[in-house]
């Protein structure tokens, strides 16, 4: 059989992560995956240099709408490191709470969407129903369901009172109960395990070599979490476990996220119980000295890096952003090798690219040159018949 080129993409949201994959397939088997990224390149790094430090908080927030809290958190961290600005302890705890709520909603978003992709629509609906509760909490604290605009240089912008704290606690305990149930489903249900187990293997050594980060790295059994290794805010004081799975497949990467949801809930509950009193922000610093700073945080998708060069003044000289999916894409090309076409969505889902991209794929038959379009679900349906036990 001749080798067919299969084009996958090119819609994809966050900063550098939009991608198109060109798969070379022999029958059912993927031989090579070549990504083409940059469809959503908006020139943000250049824009950073033209806006002031204060305006850049909101620009960094819009690199990725899903993990927006992680982006502002890293951004204010890098500014605070460069300008030696200290943050009141209450603000640090509040930042942790909102960052973990953001992680919860991001993981639920992914797990729900993947469940739908695998044909488990009931689970998708149930997970997304629970996710709405988290969105409500985010709205209650920050004033918007998605984009939070919560972190600012030198603190946070809003406080929570005891009523809000009680509500968060109540909702989270309920969600935790539900998630213990869903975890069982993710571990045992054949709809999920048969589609994900043993698919998209990434060995620990390869994972490190290809510099993947976050849940992908932890799914390969490497104990690496920025919150533990390089504690920022108050993660050093909060007890939590770094979740790792050593089966190195897609299932492991999903399970890392499932367990992280439970861990995140515990972190938020701990932070609420230990929330210190006091002010929530310092006066806004608009001007930085000449400095260089490097900050990283654990975004829902993995390590997020900001590297700032300041020459003094109101604007940064250079601000480099490395988003987690940019690091994970290369690892994904390794996972695809030798897998079936039907598994492509599941593997791509396991690195958690922002999911909207998954909706339009073209298949080009190199022999006839004809091209036709299929959605990921249709691909799954078309190719999974008879190809999986």
């Amino acid at each position, binding site marked *: 059989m001749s080798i067919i080129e299969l084009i996958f993409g090119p819609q994809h949201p966050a900063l*550098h992560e939009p991608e198109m994959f060109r798969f070379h397939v022999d029958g059912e088997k993927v031989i090579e995956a070549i990504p083409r*990224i940059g469809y959503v*390149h908006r020139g943000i790094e*250049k824009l950073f240099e033209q806006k002031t430090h204060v305006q850049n908080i909101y620009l960094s927030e819009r690199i990725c709408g899903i993990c927006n809290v992680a982006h502002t958190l890293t951004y204010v961290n890098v500014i605070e490191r460069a300008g030696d600005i200290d943050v009141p302890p209450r603000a640090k705890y509040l930042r942790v709470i909102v960052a973990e709520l953001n992680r919860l909603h991001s993981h639920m978003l992914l797990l729900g969407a993947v469940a739908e992709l695998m044909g488990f629509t009931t689970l998708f609906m149930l997970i997304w129903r629970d996710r709405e509760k988290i969105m409500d909490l985010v709205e209650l604290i920050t004033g918007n369901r998605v984009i939070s605009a919560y972190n600012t240089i030198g603190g946070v912008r809003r406080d929570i009172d005891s009523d809000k704290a009680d509500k968060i606690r109540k909702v989270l305990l309920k969600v935790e109960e539900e998630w213990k149930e869903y975890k069982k489903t993710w571990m045992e249900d054949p709809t999920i395990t048969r589609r994900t187990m043993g698919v998209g293997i990434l060995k620990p050594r390869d994972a490190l070599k*290809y*510099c993947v980060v976050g849940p992908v790295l932890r799914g390969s059994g490497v104990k690496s979490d920025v919150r533990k290794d*390089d504690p920022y805010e108050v993660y050093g004081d909060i007890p939590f476990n770094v979740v790792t799975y050593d089966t190195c497949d897609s299932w492991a990467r999903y399970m890392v996220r499932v367990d992280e949801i439970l861990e995140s809930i515990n972190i938020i509950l701990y932070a609420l119980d230990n929330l210190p009193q006091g002010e929530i922000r310092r006066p806004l610093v608009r001007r930085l000295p000449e400095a260089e700073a490097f900050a990283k945080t654990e975004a829902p998708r993995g390590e997020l890096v900001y590297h700032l*060069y300041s020459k003094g003044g109101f604007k940064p000289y*250079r601000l480099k952003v490395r988003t987690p999916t940019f690091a994970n894409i*290369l690892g994904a090309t390794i996972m695809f090798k030798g897998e079936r076409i039907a598994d492509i969505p599941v593997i791509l889902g396991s690195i958690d690219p922002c999911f909207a991209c998954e909706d339009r794929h073209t298949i080009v038959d190199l022999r006839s040159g004809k091209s036709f379009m299929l959605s990921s679900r249709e691909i799954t349906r078309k190719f999974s018949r008879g190809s999986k036990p």
Partner: protein
Amino acid sequence: MKSVKELFSEQEIVAERARRVYVKISKDKLRDVVKKMVELHDGQVYLSCITGVDWIDRMEVAYNIWVLPESCNYTLKVDLPRDNPEITSISDIIPGALFHECEVYDLLGIVFKGNPILKKPFILPEGMKKEFPLRKDYKI
């Protein structure tokens, strides 16, 4: 030798903060240092990012490498001439550098010799074949 820090001499270390070490090294030494870093900890290192900066009189490439066992980030800075910025790729030692190098080349025009997929445009729109938007003389 136990720590990566011992690979560098006193003069090379520019600044040191909690879990951050900033090092300035020469272009020729870079590959050697990266290789030793990887070997020292049996591959327990990964590349966080490569930052390219245009300082108008020169170019700078900063390799940020996280060393897991030491929980420390090493920023290896290399200065390059601005009119012909060229450096040897480290993608054969750390394959994860492939995309990072492409990105820096695409936005700043720093050539990484030996990178097999170096091309332009990589993330820029198709039309921008000769422009380097992150250079300071690029006007929008």
